[in-house]
């Protein structure tokens, strides 16, 4: 994967327009996946992934050649898509009118948001639901943002902790702890789901 960046960067520095499609083809799956696993909605994910590429294009167009050759494309692109997904999620959570719920200091509003921001059922997602992947995807979208983002980057996208530190601007130790805690939360939620199923079957 690092090899891929090395191949593209000289081309991007020399001829952005001639190389940009190769960048899109090399990274479209991962940017879409990151956005989808952070947001849960395929249409939001596609828009955010496209927006991330447009911003990357404009940024590279404004950089000089040495800066482009030093870009760490994988974490850099991940950072762009994570930021855009966060903005999109924040906007989506904006209440249509002033709501006192969101001012609750005890964190109950956060729980409300987690339940109300559950992904809408889309045909593409509905098909996926039948598989176990859908169950994990749903558990992931229920995870608080500070755990979900590191988990998506580490275990869905496959970034190293060093790359994640680069992308998220958090120390590696913090990220390791967040990933570990997030995995444990996912496991607990998964086991709770299994127990609920067993109880349904024996009832």
């Amino acid at each position, binding site marked *: 994967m690092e090899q891929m960046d090395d191949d593209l960067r000289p081309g991007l520095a020399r001829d952005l327009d001639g190389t940009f499609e190769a960048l899109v083809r090399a990274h*479209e*799956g991962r940017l*879409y*996946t990151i956005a989808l*696993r952070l947001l849960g909605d395929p249409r939001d994910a596609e828009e955010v992934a496209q927006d991330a*590429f*447009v911003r990357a294009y404009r940024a590279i167009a404004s950089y000089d050649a040495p800066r482009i050759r030093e870009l760490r494309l994988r974490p850099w692109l991940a950072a762009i898509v994570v930021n855009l997904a966060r903005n999109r999620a924040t906007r989506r959570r904006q209440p249509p009118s002033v709501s006192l719920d969101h001012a609750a200091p005890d964190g109950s509003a956060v729980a409300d948001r987690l339940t109300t921001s559950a992904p809408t059922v889309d045909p593409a997602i509905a098909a996926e639901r039948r598989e176990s992947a859908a169950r994990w995807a749903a558990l992931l979208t229920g995870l608080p943002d500070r755990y979900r983002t590191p988990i998506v980057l580490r275990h*869905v*996208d496959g970034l190293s902790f060093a790359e994640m530190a680069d992308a998220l601007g958090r120390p590696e130790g913090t990220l390791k702890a967040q990933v570990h805690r997030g995995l444990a939360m996912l496991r607990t939620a998964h086991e709770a789901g299994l127990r609920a199923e067993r109880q349904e079957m024996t009832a």
Partner: protein
Amino acid sequence: MIRHDRPTVDLAEVEAALAGLALPAPPTLAPATLLAVGLADAYAEIASPIGPLFVAWNGRGVSAVVAAEEPSEFEERFFAQVGRPIRRAEALPARLARAIDRRLAGDRRIRIDLDLRGRTDFERAVWMKALEIPRGEVRPYAWVAAEIGRPRAVRAVGSALAHNPVPLVVPCHRVVRSDGLCGEYSLGGPDNKRTILAAEGLDPDELEALARRGIRYIGSDTTRVFCLPSCHNARRIQPRHRVPFRTAGESAAAGYRACRDCRPTSGRAVAA
């Protein structure tokens, strides 16, 4: 009793499940991205006074306007000339369609982004000046040349207008020969130019008849102002107050001043 406090699922199993959540991008993502940054174009058909047109665009703006033809031929020629792939779309983006409608109806303030990459500053200056000419009016090539500060570049102005990639959106049809005749037109020939001007409320025959009689300017004996014949101010003058002039010198000698809207003396030295 099942003990709930001891995990029964291994963390490695969770990690493996997460690794399986990667998906390929939808097939629409890359084409839409390349369109957005202007590395590919889309086109759709619109109606116009001279028949159906193809309008091409990308994320930077409108990139081409041509008379509708066999789609495969247009796509091939576009790729050969512009070097970007192009694909047919159902329709223009709604906002662009509305903006073009308003521009063609004479609203010059409506903003339409244009993709003019690779064009010279001179060409851009000519096209931007053409955009200042009101609907239903015309200006001579020499007028455009003088207005952009290149009074001797009349021929180059004609060439730039002939190479206008976005006719109608940039109204090069409102620029006519300095002798007052309508002249050539890039979008399907001179007859189309007359049709478009007529659709904009100008009578090209009347304009050319005036030019053949050597009349270049119309003055008003009440305001003592003289204009180019198609200027909105000239067209308001009642027949009994209209005073024709052959040269700007003639009108100046008669004590008339130049209209501030159509600036009839722009390009006069070269046009004479």
